[in-house]
């Protein structure tokens, strides 16, 4: 099929089998390797991207499901030389260790803060419950999301 999507703000048109996974299109055709594959079955959340503004496991989505859709990956949430407030907060709070879950974790956090600018701890835990992290014990990730929420509310 001829697939037409907007990826990180740019229109992309490419030929692909309709049953190709979105993650493969992102990583192999668009060369956006910040989206990670941890399990291939929607259990770990490492492949999370924003599809039409909502977090989605890109390993479970087929090309034919995203026709004319808008996709944002980790490479697309901030300008090349800057950091999104969520990225900045992850750096400052020490919320990153091995980093493999980080892109997915950040996109789930961005999606949460887009709809809920002042989440409490339980709401953060709920929003991130589809993203596994095996390094940090999550605690510093929660603090990073709280810090990012505050900077976003303060218009930073």
């Amino acid at each position, binding site marked *: 099929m001829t697939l037409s999507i907007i990826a990180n703000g740019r229109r992309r048109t490419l030929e692909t089998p309709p049953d190709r996974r979105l993650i493969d299109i992102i990583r192999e055709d668009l060369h956006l390797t910040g989206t990670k594959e941890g*399990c291939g079955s929607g259990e770990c959340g490492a492949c999370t991207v924003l599809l039409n503004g909502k977090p989605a496991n890109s390993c479970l989505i087929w090309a034919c499901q995203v026709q004319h859709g808008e996709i944002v990956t980790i490479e697309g949430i901030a300008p090349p030389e800057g950091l999104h407030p969520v990225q900045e907060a992850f750096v400052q709070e020490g919320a990153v260790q091995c980093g493999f*879950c980080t892109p997915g974790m950040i996109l789930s956090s961005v999606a949460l803060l887009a709809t809920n600018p002042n989440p409490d701890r339980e709401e953060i835990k709920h929003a991130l419950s589809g993203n596994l*992290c095996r390094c940090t014990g999550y605690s510093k990730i929660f603090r990073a999301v709280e810090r990012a929420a505050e900077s976003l509310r303060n218009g930073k």
Partner: protein
Amino acid sequence: MISQSPSVVGSSIPRADAIGKVTGRTKYGADYSMPGMLWAAVVRSDRPHAEISAIETDDALGIDGVEAVITAGDIPGNNVVPVVFRDQPCLAENVVRYVGEPIALVAAATQEIAREAAGRVRVSYRDLPAVFDPRDAMTPDSPKIFGDDNVVKHWRIRRGDPTQAFKTADIVVEDTYRTPYQEHAYIEPQAMLAIPTSGGGIEVLGAMQCPFYVQWALVEVLGLPYSKVRVIQTATGGAFGGKEDVPSLVACQAALLAMKTGRPVKLVYTRREDIRSMSKRHPAWIRYKSAADKTGKLLAVEVEYILNAGAYATLSPVVLWRGTVHAVGPYRCENVQVDAYAVATNTVPCGAFRGFGSPQILFAAESQMDRLAEALGMNPVEIRSRNLLKMGDTTPFGQILKESVGSEEALDLAVKQSEFASKYRSFPAESKNNRIKCGIGMACTFYGVGLGAGGAHLARTGAFVQMLADGSVQFAVGTTEIGQGMETVLGQIVAEELGVTADRVSMLPVDTSRVPDSGPTVASRATTMSGQALRNACNPIRKILLEEAALTLGCSGSDVSLARGYAADDRKEIEISQLAARAIKQRKHLASQGFHVAPPTSWEEENGQGDAYVVYSWATHVAEVEVNTATGEVRVLKIVAAHDVGRAVNPQAVEGQIEGGAVQGMGYAVMEHIPMENGVLQAEDLSTYIVPTSKDVPDITSIIVEHPFSDGPYGAKGFGEHPLMGIAPAVANAVAHAIGIHISEIPLIPERVLAAMGK
């Protein structure tokens, strides 16, 4: 202006690798591609023990896009992936010994084709009798997997006269404990890219802890000299021991196909393949008997400790050794008998996992301490304080503790912070009539830092440091960043040594061609060992900077301090970047190699006595739980962890290790396990192997205790494994406090808790 700066060491600067990781720019093994690259897939055994009668590859080779199929006969070098022994083949030859064992390799144009072709390689088997339980494997009529008795290794400790001590003791408690498989569940599956070089050699890059292990395996399997084998670590998405020895297998698989086809070959495991075939924490069976007198003095300990090694020895002998050394826990005890066995079965080989053979035995040891306390009417703090190893004491394996013993301070701080004493008294009464009962429990642990006598021949590290014309600094080491924060911490050490700010220091990718064999990145050794090697490397550079500064400032070199990017005496200062430019113009050598060898250790095998490790880190964990007596569910609400780390080079990174280890330990305590049936693991993905999610996380309080270690950089000791080690017994003791029943098997899943309560 004279700069009076806070030191770089000891400050919580953000991680050096954080920006690359939050922007998605950091490349992991699977993110690399090459022109002309092929994809690999592995054909694996679906039998636990069988003779291979035939391997038919024609079907697979006939698929469009398949470039090569390899079996054991195609291996140019030795068919062995060496670890401690040389019993594990790279590809099964004649016999398979576990489900998931590699038999053949396929290279094809795409990953899909490679995987399809692997499924079309037909292996015919003749089944052999198999054995799955290590205690069955120790019986005389068991099928033999390893040697003539399946015992991969037996370690012992003999001290005093336990038999006599048990006869005369006031209190004796004994039980049998069991612990499960634990899967590392690093989020990044194993991944490797192998590239043939123009000189007939190989370059391999990918996820790993131990590039020099990978190099050694490639030398063996490919039959190449070391000089033609180069291994580069990419960013690695979690390891925890699960990328210690097994990446050698992955690398050999990709490299064999690369050498055969003359093209780059990438191999990325599926999650299922990874869980099925890669190493795990050994399941353990432990019989533990302890004796005390009326005052709570620990008189004697007798332990039988059996690990299920799986089908090959891999790291089991040294995992077992660490378990043996830690068998009594951090206590004085004059009468000790430990018999520890790693036993081969027809199951996936177990290996390294954070704690390395100690979490299993410490679960038993620390459960026993609570039972002794209960029998004596003491509280858990009293009995531990009564016996805790202190400076100058002799360990149960005969080592006199000469420095850096923060055991008491860690205990005191954890007990105070957690309000242990009052909660221990009040919880039973408070939840007496409730369905949900609260409990609080604790565990004291110690951790032998580094490889110790069990791996003394590997206890050295190399380093390279270079200051460039703008005063920025590059360094290289042979240990790896695997998420633990090594890159940042070592950068801080280099910055401190050379007086520059940490943002001026960059780590080069870990590459076997840059520094000499530095041993593995295991045993919480990277900060101490590479840190010391880097300090050695910095010395000559620092000397040149001081000389240049003295000349420029018109003072003596001994009056100059280097800090925060400036060289200064008490009147003037000059930027280090200017000194560097000047020194380089004068053809001074601003680059240097460093090397560090660990101080001596010893182990006398017959009686298990010796100076096992150079130094120990010390910890106390307190866990607060609630147990739903109707459903059996255990929720861990709070964890307080106090750790003597010698010196926290980066306190935020130390906290990160404590929090991550606590949650991994909590998973081990209450949810993680893999049932095994006839050699087949019954969990093969992350929906059946359950690890803690964000919703399971308790409130964690980290307490850093600093009793400096003279051979650690700025006093630092290794401790990255330690945060996991005391959690399971602290949680189990808290559950026992809540429901009044000790459960001697983890994880404390609802059905087990209900069964223990007779429901």
